[in-house]
Structure formats: C-alpha cells, structure tokens
C-alpha cells in the first residue's frame, strides 16, 4: 500500500487501486462497473437500438439534386455530403431517446438507390451503466420531381412575375449602363428570361418576391416610377387558392446625363430659383441638375421628379461640335457635388460654320484650353420643340445663351491613337433580341455602344459601379505615348479586374493585377 503525504493540507491520502471482480455472467475478470457485467454480456443482454428506425424512404429530385423534407421543403445536397448526413439524421424518428455520438456514411453504389448510414449511439442501461452501440440505417431513395422542376418541365416559359422596364427616350445609353450595374450587383441572377424590346427591357421571374427584389434594386440606382398589376391565371375553388401573374410596369425618368432641361417655373422656383436652363450632370437614384451660369446644383429624387414630370429640351443626340478659340481666366471656381467647375467666358465657333463666332459663358473653364474641341448645344441655331423653352425665350430680356457647352471632345486624340482595341472588356447580360419588329438597326446599336464605351473611358465617376475586366489581347502602341502630349482618355490598369473566365491565360499573371479601386 503506497501512501502520499500531502504536507500542505496535512492530509494522509491513500492511493486507491480499483480491484477487479468477476463478470456475473461469464466469469471473466473485469473492473467493476454499474452493471457488474462485462461489455459483451451487457451487449447480449441489452439492445439499446431496439425501437429505433432502421430503414426509411426518402425522396430525391434528379433535376435539381434536392431531397424532400416533408411536407414541402426541398433541400439541396450532394451525394455523401455533410448536408445529406444532417438531413438523413433529421428524418429518423425516436433518435432523441438515445444520445448520438457519431454518424458516417457506408459506401454504396450511387445507382443502387440506397444510402447507408452507420450511427453510434449511447444510452444508459440497468443501473447507470452507459453502453455504446453502433448500428446501420438504410435509406431507400425514390425519384420524385420537385414542384418547381415539374412546373418547369411542363412549360419552360412559365413565369409568375415580370418587370417591364421602359425609358421613353430615343437612345439606349441608360440600358447599357443599367446592364453593367445589374451585372455588378448580380440583381438579375434569378431572372428566367430577359428580353429586349423597343425602348426597354423585360425581365421574367419565377417568383413574385424575386421581381420585387429586382424592382427595389432598380429604385436604388435610377429614379423610377412603377405600378404593380396582377392577372388571375387559375383558381382552386375548394381550397380558395388563387394563382396570379404579376407585372411591374417600371418607368425610368427620361432625363439623362448631359441633357439640357428647361425647368418649368414651378419647379425652378421650388429649387430656389435655379435658372430654368439647367444641365443634367448625373443620374443615380436622384437627378443632379447644374445651372451652368451660377454653378449651383440641385438634386431631385424620383418622387420630386415625377410630381412635375418635365422632359429634356435637348438630348445628347443634338450635341454639336465646337472649336474653342479663346478661354478667359475663370471668374468663379466652385466644387459642386464632388466635381470642380470653373465659370469663364470662351470664344467658340461651330465646326460646321466656323465663321460665326460666339462669346458665351461656360462652366467648363477648368478643362478647356484654346485649340480644344468641345461638344455643346447650339441654342442659337436649333429649333427647340419645348414649351418651357418658348416661354422662357419670350420672358427673358437678353435672350437665351447661344450655346451651352457640355463636355470636351477627344475625337482628335482618338484619331491619333488609331487603336483598334481597348484595354478593357465588359460582360453582357443574356438578353434576347426582339427581331420580329425590325426597327432596330444593328449599325446604330453598335454606334451607341461605342459611344457608351467612350463615355466610360472619359468619366471615372461612371466607372464606379461598373466591373471592367482586363483585355489581355490589348497591345499598347508605343508611338502614341511619345508623340502626343495629352493622350486620349483611357482606363488606368489599376481599375481593371482580373477575370479568369474571359482571359484564358495563366492565372498567376492575372493575380498580380488584382483590382484595388473596386
């Protein structure tokens, strides 16, 4: 007998060794336990798996690899995955009577339609002895198409909700930009079909909530007005279930970037007497209007805009090229909405009629230099079909400004560069073209798209929400960088995303150029 003197507490602790007894059934020596039987005898006595389910049927949809959890939920799970194991264990009844210690799959052929799971359970038997036992549960898999797959099989074009997006303008710039936005935010990932129509795009969804989510997304990025309508498709009299088709008619505000707007007097006075001639500089979830004469800015959100619903007087189609001969030093400089503007007087002449010179005010004093080209609205020579403009023209003493410059023109520099390809690429949404109408001219579409890409190059602000991917086929021309002092605007490499799908080159090259300005 060994003993340990614990000097600190003064206790005399005797070491206790557990003796051994004979198992009361088979007589083998064993340390004593609660039942005083060896494990084998105990196992033969007691079966803790009695009353537990050993075989069960589960339903599987082969189209979408989902398993049915009654009454209605379908759970997606791969073969022999953790989710499948959790699902199988949940389906077993009575498992709360014993404690589950371990569960694992036993390999079966996938086509045998059987899943075998080995469960190890623990339970208390006789007077306190805890026994552990493992047993096999067999799941019979039956094929059964889930509701959504069967509905899809019956009619693939079936949609429940649709969003009809429209903008009543003559160009499609907004839709190109929206397409990039949607791609960036993955907002149309649940759309069944996307179809392009005249002056708009239709999105079809399988679920009203998906359509609703999409409309909410649109509300955050462009100023819209929408209404929701529904159409009864079928009606179950006995259980009073109604099936509807829902349609959201969404109208985007027709005022776009770089448009010239003549504000109705009520709106102008509501905005603090903003000069009725304003330029729209930015459209996001609200419209930014800039008065080029006073450099004052106003923001209109969707609700405010749709209360008056004014249209633009002149759109970007009507932009005219001007030559800038002289730029005087800026009278006033202001930073409005993050952009620097400088008010100064310039001498300009239209490209088509260089003889006639105009001396006008412009808000682009910060970027224009003599010898530049600029794009602007020719109010002197234009025949504007706008009531507000007429009213204003009659009321004002000195007459309307002869021209309002909107942006600088980089055509010359672009000519010099003679680049065939750009250094970035954009992804596209899977939009179906509506060929039946025949009104769409492919050449015009290409031109518009080219202009949109040029817009992206010139405006870093516009690029903010667009994912641009690196074009590995791009070769920068060496001559361009040496000859021209001011190059045409291009997207800096740092802003481009490395896209492993578009470019099939090695991934290690692309990983170095990962985007940081995202």
């Amino acid at each position, binding site marked *: *007998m060994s003993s340990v003197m614990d000097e600190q507490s003064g206790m005399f602790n*005797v*070491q*206790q*060794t*557990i*003796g051994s*007894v*004979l*198992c*009361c*059934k*088979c*007589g083998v020596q064993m340390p*004593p336990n609660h*039942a*005083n*039987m060896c494990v084998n005898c105990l196992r033969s006595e007691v079966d803790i798996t009695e009353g537990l389910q050993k075989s069960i049927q589960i339903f599987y949809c082969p189209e979408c690899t989902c398993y049915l959890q009654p009454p209605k939920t379908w759970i997606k799970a791969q073969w022999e995955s953790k989710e499948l194991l959790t699902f199988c264990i949940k389906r077993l009844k009575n498992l709360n009577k014993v404690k589950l210690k371990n569960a694992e799959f036993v390999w079966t052929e996938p086509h045998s339609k059987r899943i075998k799971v080995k469960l190890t359970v623990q339970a208390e038997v*006789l007077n306190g002895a805890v026994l552990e036992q493992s047993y096999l549960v067999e799941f019979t898999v039956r094929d059964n198409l889930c509701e959504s797959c069967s509905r899809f099989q019956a009619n693939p074009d079936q949609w429940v909700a649709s969003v009809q997006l429209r903008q009543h303008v003559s160009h499609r710039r907004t839709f190109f930009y929206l397409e990039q936005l949607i791609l960036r935010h993955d907002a149309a990932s649940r759309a069944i079909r996307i179809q392009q129509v005249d002056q708009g795009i239709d999105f079809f969804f399988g679920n009203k909530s998906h359509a609703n989510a999409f409309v909410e997304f649109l509300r955050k990025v462009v100023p819209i007005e929408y209404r929701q309508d529904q159409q009864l498709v079928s009606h179950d009299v006995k259980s009073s279930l109604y099936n509807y088709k829902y349609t959201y008619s969404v109208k985007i505000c027709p005022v776009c970037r770089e448009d010239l707007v003549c504000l109705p007097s009520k709106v102008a006075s509501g905005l603090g007497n903003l000069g009725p001639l304003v330029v729209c500089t930015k459209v996001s979830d609200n419209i930014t209007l800039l008065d080029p004469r006073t450099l004052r800015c106003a923001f209109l959100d969707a609700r405010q805009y749709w209360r008056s619903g004014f249209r633009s007087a002149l759109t970007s189609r009507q932009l005219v090229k001007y030559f800038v001969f002289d730029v005087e030093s800026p009278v006033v400089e202001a930073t409005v909405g993050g952009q620097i503007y400088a008010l100064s007087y310039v001498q300009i002449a239209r490209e088509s009629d260089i003889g006639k010179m105009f001396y006008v005010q412009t808000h682009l004093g910060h970027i224009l230099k003599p010898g530049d080209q600029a794009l602007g609205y020719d109010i002197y020579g234009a025949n504007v079909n706008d009531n507000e403009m007429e009213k204003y023209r009659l009321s004002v003493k000195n007459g309307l400004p002869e021209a309002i410059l909107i942006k600088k023109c980089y055509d010359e520099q672009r000519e010099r560069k003679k680049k065939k390809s750009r250094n970035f690429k954009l992804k596209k949404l899977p939009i179906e073209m509506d060929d039946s109408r025949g009104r769409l001219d492919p050449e015009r579409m290409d031109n518009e798209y080219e202009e949109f890409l040029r817009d992206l190059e010139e405006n870093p602000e516009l690029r903010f929400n667009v994912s641009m991917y690196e074009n590995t086929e791009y070769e920068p021309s060496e001559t361009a960088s040496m000859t021209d002092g001011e190059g045409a605007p291009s997207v800096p490499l740092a802003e481009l995303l490395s896209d492993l799908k578009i470019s099939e080159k090695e991934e290690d090259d692309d990983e170095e150029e990962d985007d940081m300005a995202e």
Partner: protein
Amino acid sequence: MATRLQFENNCEVGVFSKLTNAYCLVAIGGSENFYSAFESELADVIPIVKTSIGGTRIIGRLCAGNKNGLLVPHTTTDQELQHLRNSLPDQVVVQRIDERLSALGNCIACNDHVALAHTDLDKETEEIIADVLGVEVFRQTIAGNILVGSYCALSNRGGMVHPHTSVEDLDELSTLLQVPLVAGTVNRGSEVIAAGMTVNDWTSFCGSDTTATELSVIDSIFKLREAQPSSIVDEMRKSLIDTYV
C-alpha cells in the same frame, strides 16, 4: 453449499431472513416455500424461527446477531421479543436496544469474533454490541458507503464486500476482520451483498437471480464446498479433548 431461492418472487433473501451458526430467523411469508427451503437444509442442526420485527417482514435488515446474541431495534414489540426469547436457544441473549439508527442489519456486519459498525452509531450501542455479541467492534466504511451491514456479508470463514471496494481497502478490512475477503456481486450484478444473500459457516442462501459465476465465487470465499455441519461439531469435540488433556 449455496442454495438459490426466492421469497415471494423476490430475490433479496438477505432482507427476509437472518442466518447464524446457532439459529435462523425467517419472515412470515404467504406460502411456506421459503420456510421449507431453509428447513430442508437446516432442520436438525439449528432452530428455524418464524418471526416479524415491529410488525414488518424485513427482519434480516432490522436485526443483527451471531451465535452469542441477537440485537433487535426499539421498534420490536414486547410479544415479538418474548417470542424470540422463547424460541431461541438459552445461550443466545436477545437484547432490544434504543438506537436512532434502527435498521441494525444495515448498520452492523458481524461474525462470531469481530463486527463492523456504522460510523455514526452511539457509543452506548457499540458497548452493547461488544457485550452481547462478544465481538470486537470496528467502525468502518466499505467502498465509501457507511451502511456496512448492507454491503458486506460475513461469516467466520470469509467475507464478500461491495464490488467497487479498492484493493487497499480490501487489505485493510481483511486484516481487521482476520478473514479472507473478496469483492463480488450477487443476484446478477447487484452490489448490495447482504441483502441478496445470507450465510453462515457451512451453508448460504442466495437469490435465484444469482449466476453460476457468482455462486462459485461465494462457494470459494466462504469455503462452503467441504463444509458439513457435522465437521464443525467434530472440530469442537477435538478442542474439548484438547482441553481435557
């Protein structure tokens, strides 16, 4: 030789009977089977007395005794006391003691020479035990349990204790009691030894659930295989002759 029996379909025979070298007490059962089992073994050797203590049948756990005497709790009625005094041999002293712990069978484990007592027993009671039973009393615990009378079955040849008793404890108890001890079970793994069986120097009675393994352990530790009642008397005769010479 160990016998397996049941009291009214219950295997806890040590609860309903008390067996010593000089007498045997049994409880009053519905049928006579219990009594006849004892009779067939012990008929001519020692008297078998049917009794109750305090109106109950759990006499094995309420009283403690050996060949010298019998201690009964304060709950025993006068009639029962008288009945016991009449039925038992004269050399057996029947004493009723006033003790807070009245289940004396659970508190005291004894043979003819030595006894183990519950640690909380009164000093007075300890003296009475030493006096009436003629034994040396040791206050002990068995495997951490204070109810020594329940977890230990003792005879003059050997003893069996609770199966969870450690080896050191077993050694200690063995030296105190001067008999070989074993840790074992009775009635298919039950740890309450004294409730499941009752034993004296040449025979023992166990519950019918006792497995063959347990029975063999009991037989070996209490040395019941060779023991016959006559051999004890022969031994006594030998010692008598010795003293005569």
